[in-house]
């Protein structure tokens, strides 16, 4: 990670790089428990959060991570900005860079937008979700949450339920889980599974029961009602009946199984109320861990830059 300028997806990362982020996040998590939840590490660094799609959780999580590390951050939202006046992505980014920003966190509706910026900017780029492609920090925080609760990722059986085709969370999870040696089983309506999904090295289960059976982790994806998915399923009620994670279905998983969801949840659709609030749910831990993982990513990508910017002093003894 230290040699990288950008974090664009888990597909590009090696197993060692993923583990480096997870190990660093352990130390970052401790900072969040302190009375003063702030360290001076990224003082003098400026991060721009560019959100071209609505987001609350991810944007707040990045903002907190930046503040906990003492970076300065600025937020750009597409609504009401120059983007709605017809400016191109490249021009927007170049203007931001002209303001001497060191890192750009971008969420965009088009797959590849962060890669485009990464090629065109000197500043580092972190992908905070690009279309249906990847959401690497969500993938990393899911891996981190699994490892913290179950002690490992290798050898686990992880079920991903729901809209796999439109889910960047699913794609980042798939890459990360495979690289760390977990086996992945997916299940969802045929219209919401990508063509030839088996070629990604996952098992496809015909029913939720078969997917959940014996699972160590059940990661329930959000039914993205705001996207085009509504025309791909007969009705939300039928989806809930056939694919929703209920208490009865969860009982088929291992007794220690974790229930995860990237949020925001459609309660009663992809996940039942009592499962979301149940003893196996680690959904709120995912949110806490998200801040620590994003701190780790910012630190690993920026630490070297910070020392160039600041007064480089000889090594202490």
């Amino acid at each position, binding site marked *: 990670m230290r040699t990288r300028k950008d974090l664009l997806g888990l597909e590009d990362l090696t197993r060692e790089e993923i583990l*480096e982020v997870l190990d*660093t996040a352990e*130390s970052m998590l401790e900072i969040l428990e302190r*009375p*003063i939840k702030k*360290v*001076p590490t990224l003082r003098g660094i400026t991060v721009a959060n560019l959100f071209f799609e609505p987001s609350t959780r991810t944007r707040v999580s990045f903002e907190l991570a930046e503040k906990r590390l003492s970076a300065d951050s600025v937020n750009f939202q597409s609504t009401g900005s120059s983007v709605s006046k017809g400016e191109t992505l490249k021009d927007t980014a170049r203007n931001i860079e002209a303001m001497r920003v060191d890192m750009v966190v971008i969420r965009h509706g088009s797959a590849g937008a962060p890669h485009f910026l990464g090629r065109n900017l000197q500043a580092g780029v972190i992908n905070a979700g690009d279309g249906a492609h990847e959401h690497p920090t969500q993938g990393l925080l899911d891996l981190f949450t699994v490892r913290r609760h179950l002690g490992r990722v290798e050898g686990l059986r992880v079920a991903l339920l729901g809209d796999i085709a439109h889910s960047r969370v699913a794609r980042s999870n798939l890459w990360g889980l495979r690289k760390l040696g977990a086996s992945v089983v997916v299940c969802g309506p045929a219209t919401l599974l990508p063509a030839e999904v088996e070629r990604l090295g996952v098992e496809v289960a015909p029913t939720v029961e078969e997917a959940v059976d014996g699972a160590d982790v059940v990661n329930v994806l959000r039914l993205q009602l705001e996207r085009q998915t509504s025309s791909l399923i007969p009705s939300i009620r039928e989806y809930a009946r056939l694919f929703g994670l209920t208490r009865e279905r969860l009982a088929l998983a291992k007794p220690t199984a974790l229930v995860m969801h990237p949020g925001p949840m459609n309660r009663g659709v992809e996940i039942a109320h009592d499962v979301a609030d149940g003893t196996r749910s680690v959904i709120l831990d995912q949110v806490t861990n998200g801040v620590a993982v994003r701190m780790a990513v910012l*630190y690993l990508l920026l630490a*070297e830059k910070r020392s160039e910017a600041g*007064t480089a002093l000889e090594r202490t003894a």
Partner: protein
Amino acid sequence: MELFKEKAEIVDALEMRRMITRLAHEIVERNKGTSELVLVGIRRRGVPLARRIQDRIREFEQAEVPLGMLDITLYRDDLKTISTQPVVGSTEIPFEIDDKVVVLVDDVLYTGRTVRAAMDEIVDFGRPRAIHLAVLIDRGHRELPIRADYVGKNVPTSRREIVAVRVEEIDGRDGVAIGEGPE
């Protein structure tokens, strides 16, 4: 430490043991007991040294002094050398430090920048009544107005020299050696 040519061992294992025992006595004497004391070792070699001071105090005072550890990586002013440190180590201070006397423990006092970073980190955990500094070796060349309260041994050095404290727990043996650095 791997890149250095050893010139001489200046402290052997037995002498190091005596130095640590003396440091432990001085800490207890100056604080008139152990009731307000907490020990915090600075990673990496400050941690085993702090643990040994804690062991000695337990032996001769029958008192348990809380022991914490500090990783100052995130507080450094020279993160350029970070590539030599694979992972940010964890800081563990699982007790209240408000109104306590925090004794920071490190192996070598040199420029004082590590201690500056450690003090900045400590005050993020609370407001101690005082912060003291115990080091095994003070080699001079301070760049900040910092001094140690308890010193195992003063060792005059040149800036080109390297002082290597070795501890059983990390290096397999105890002792202090002086050598020439690379260049």
